């Protein structure tokens, strides 16, 4: 099977969605065009060659890229299915082709980014992953918060692009090469280049101090878009960081470790402490995702190794599935009662027991409670940090996990304990979203106890 097949599928689906939108009139587009292409591309991944180099090395395929593409396609598929599931109770309408097209574009950008073989392709891939996501976050035009979030996102995205371009310009100018590889001799100004590139990656991963956009954007964006931002977009940030660490920054990782440790601790602590105060669940998930990005960085603290890489990819996958489940429940509640405050989850176990159970397992996995997948993922990451001798970071990470348990359990308390008095609207429940949430919940439970997932990833790399 040709190595470019998944990208081609997504690209053609994008074009067909655009054409269909132009001619479909009131009928609207067929969502199958979007999610069918994503599902097909996901299905193709295992049959692609393990190593390939196309277009003179601009497009590379390797196991790491395949794993990232699986994460991107999985998130995109679930986001699309959630988005086209059922309309709001009070607003009927048709599905807009532009929305699905823009989502496909962001997906295509992420896939190009992880397969990029030179600096220009890497940068364009990152922009193609980011800019459509910015537009998507402002998509709910009747909601002023969505516009506000979109504006903040576009301004900070422009700032991060400016820093990144400055870094790339210095890098290309000083090394005289577009290749995505370590410079032959140490560059002058290496520290500045490193700081600028790290700032760009930090923005995508929403690591403090580049996290300022996250909360407002997550809260204002339509929920399927918030899911996209918290899963695939974050994975794209990690992929970008990996590309840099295997490319231009390859020799610099040992010098960067104290900085990475500091960023990780800052992200975990700040995300957790602010999450405790939140009342809106989407905002809450934004801060939760900031702290999760901090845990992810622990995998780098033992230097660049296959074990660390596998630990980070495994945790990314686990985090993505956990977020897909939790956000799926949030979306269901939003469609049932039109709001996403923590209050609206009161007594959910009486109203929709299935959703409440899924939410419980999703949140506990994000908090890292055994035997769920989140625990296993965190365990591997902590082990990496400990292997590198960063015991104080591990200690702080463990303390942070405990704090996070407190705020995740706040929601569980609303759902399971506060069941008396007037309960919010029940809602009637979707069919497909419910099945996806159920599948995700099962995956969270199984991934924690079946060892072959992590072992398989480790073997692939």
């Amino acid at each position: 099977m040709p190595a470019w097949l998944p990208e081609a599928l997504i690209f053609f689906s994008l074009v067909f969605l655009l054409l269909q939108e132009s001619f479909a009139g009131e009928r609207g587009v067929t969502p199958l065009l979007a999610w069918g292409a994503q599902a097909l591309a996901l299905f193709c991944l295992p049959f692609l060659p393990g190593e390939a180099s196309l277009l003179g090395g601009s497009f590379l395929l390797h196991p790491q890229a395949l794993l990232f593409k699986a994460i991107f396609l999985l998130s995109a598929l679930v986001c699309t299915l959630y988005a086209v599931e059922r309309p709001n109770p009070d607003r009927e309408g048709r599905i807009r082709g532009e929305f699905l097209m823009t989502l496909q574009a962001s997906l295509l950008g992420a896939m190009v980014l992880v397969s990029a073989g030179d600096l220009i392709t890497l940068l364009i891939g990152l922009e193609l992953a980011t800019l459509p996501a910015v537009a998507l976050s402002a998509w709910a035009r009747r909601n002023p918060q969505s516009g506000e979030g979109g504006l903040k996102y576009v301004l900070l995205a422009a700032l991060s692009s400016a820093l990144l371009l400055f870094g790339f310009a210095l890098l290309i100018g000083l090394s005289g090469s577009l290749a995505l590889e370590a410079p032959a001799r140490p560059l002058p100004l290496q520290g500045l280049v490193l700081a600028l590139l790290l700032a760009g990656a930090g923005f995508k991963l929403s690591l403090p101090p580049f996290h300022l956009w996250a909360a407002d954007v997550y809260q204002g964006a339509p929920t399927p878009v918030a899911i996209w931002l918290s899963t695939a977009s974050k994975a794209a940030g990690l992929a970008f960081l990996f590309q840099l660490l295997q490319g231009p920054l390859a020799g610099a990782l040992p010098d960067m470790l104290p900085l990475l440790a500091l960023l990780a601790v800052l992200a975990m602590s700040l995300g957790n402490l602010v999450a405790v105060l939140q009342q809106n669940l989407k905002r809450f998930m934004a801060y939760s995702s900031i702290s999760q990005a901090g845990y992810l960085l622990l995998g780098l603290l033992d230097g660049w190794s296959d074990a660390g890489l596998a630990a980070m990819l495994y945790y990314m996958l686990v985090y993505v599935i956990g977020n897909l489940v939790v956000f799926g429940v949030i979306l269901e509640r939003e469609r049932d009662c039109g709001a996403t405050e923590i209050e609206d989850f009161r007594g959910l176990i009486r109203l929709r027991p299935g959703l409440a159970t899924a939410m419980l397992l999703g949140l506990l996995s994000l908090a890292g409670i055994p035997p769920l997948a989140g625990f296993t993922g965190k365990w591997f990451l902590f082990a990496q940090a400990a292997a590198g001798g960063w015991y104080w970071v591990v200690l702080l990470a463990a303390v942070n996990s405990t704090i996070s348990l407190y705020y995740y359990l706040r929601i569980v308390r609303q759902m399971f304990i506060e069941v008396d008095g007037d309960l919010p609207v029940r809602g009637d429940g979707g069919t497909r979203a419910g099945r996806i949430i159920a599948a995700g919940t099962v995956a969270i439970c199984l991934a924690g106890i079946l060892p072959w997932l992590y072992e398989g990833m480790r073997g692939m790399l």
Partner: protein
Amino acid sequence: MRPSDPFFYLFALLALGLARACVCSQHLLRATLYLAGVLFCGAAFYVILDAEFLAGIQLLVYIGGISVLLIFAIMLTRGPDLLKDRPSPLRRNLALALSLSFMGLCSFLVLRTDWPAALPAEPHENPVRDMGVRLLNPGEGGLLLPFEVISVLLLCVAIAAIYLARPGSGEERPLS
């Protein structure tokens, strides 16, 4: 001292002054004009560096395209009275301190660095032709993939921008 050096310093001073005026101007339209001036100085630097093609691109795209687009956007969106922005003293000083510290850091690093001799440049008979060939070259060192991907980017961003800017017709399906 090369003969072009006085011009470099002249345009550098001009660029600095215009950039300051652009940032500090109370009026959006004037700021845009100052910005066009800064971009023009950029074109002048390219000429000084013997990169005439880039200078032409700078004039065409940035001054001819982007500045005009900005002016249109300003004129089409709001009345000139609303364009005044008065940042609070705290914000102003904070921004000043941040920019100065970034400038200080960069200058410190640039001055402290031991710069290598310039890389030997390959002679180009026709640099514009070489650039064009490279952009569409699918082989080694070619940039066909980013060239194609950027067209997808432009298409999608343009369509998304039209969707967001279009007056609402009320028939779309809200996603949440």
